[in-house]
């Protein structure tokens, strides 16, 4: 999360920094019980971010002898390196290329699915509440009562100019 604070200052898309746990950063918790690899966050970390191209440390710290000899060859002219060697050097330094970093994920399907699922669940909860929690409707909602209320509103001349009673034809006793 330290990287997030620095990343916000960049002002670009906030991407979750994918922290690649390298072989050098693994520390198992003591006392024998199974714990996932902990990353020492107090040391420079590797991360793949499109807006921060060069992370604080190379991806691979512990080099095999072959890697070390390749690194020695890197000190000479780069024209003498083959394509495979150049790619190997890149992969020693970096975990993902830009296209790999920027791959579209299907996360949106999970998010949308989750939204619909919880909306549906909420709907079920509301339905249950409607049946088991809501009190019965007052008697004034019934048809006869509604008719009496309507007649009373017309008798009171509710909104006689432009609104309710204005639409009632009092001579003929019907709606205009």
């Amino acid at each position, binding site marked *: 999360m330290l990287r997030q604070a620095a990343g916000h200052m960049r002002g670009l898309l906030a991407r979750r920094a994918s922290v690649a746990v390298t072989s050098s950063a693994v520390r198992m918790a003591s006392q024998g019980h199974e714990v996932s690899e902990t990353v020492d966050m107090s040391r420079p970390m590797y991360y793949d971010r499109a807006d921060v*191209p060069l992370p604080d440390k190379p991806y691979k710290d512990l080099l095999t002898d072959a890697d070390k000899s390749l690194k020695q060859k890197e000190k000479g002219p*780069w024209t*003498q390196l083959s394509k495979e060697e*150049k790619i190997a050097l*890149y992969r020693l*330094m970096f975990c993902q290329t830009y296209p790999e970093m920027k791959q579209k994920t299907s996360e949106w399907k999970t998010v949308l699915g989750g939204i619909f699922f919880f909306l549906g669940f909420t709907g079920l909860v509301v339905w249950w509440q409607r049946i088991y929690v809501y009190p019965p409707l007052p008697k004034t909602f019934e048809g006869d009562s509604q008719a009496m209320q309507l007649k009373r509103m017309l008798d009171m001349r509710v909104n006689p100019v432009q609104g309710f009673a204005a639409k009632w034809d009092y001579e003929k006793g019907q709606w205009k």
Partner: protein
Amino acid sequence: MFRAVYRLSSAGARTLVRTRPRYAAPVASRCYSHGKVETDEEFDARWVTYFSKPDIDGWELRKGMNTLIGYDLVPEPKVLDSALRACRRLNDLASAIRILEAVKDKAGPHKDIYPYLIQELQPTLAELGISTPEELGIDKL
């Protein structure tokens, strides 16, 4: 500077204009009404000088590149040339390739900027032996 021609943050690609309009763009991310405004040329010169430091170290290269990529612009070829040469002094081919990937990404929807940059940098790339991501095949998944 490409920001004199494009506002990268606005949508819509236009054709690349080779001659830049002559007006002074403000220093990246500052908006003060008084005080000296840095021109594009001064900005470029400052960054070329930064990367040209003979004994530049890895941290300075990383800091410089990350800061530069943080700006709302695509760096000029001469700035990138200076940065690639700094990678050479540090014996770091991988970072050189990463820089090329980063500026391609910075151009965003403006697909004609990156080929122009590569065209301008071709002599340097040939001289130093830096392969582009396309030549290595790592521009595809």
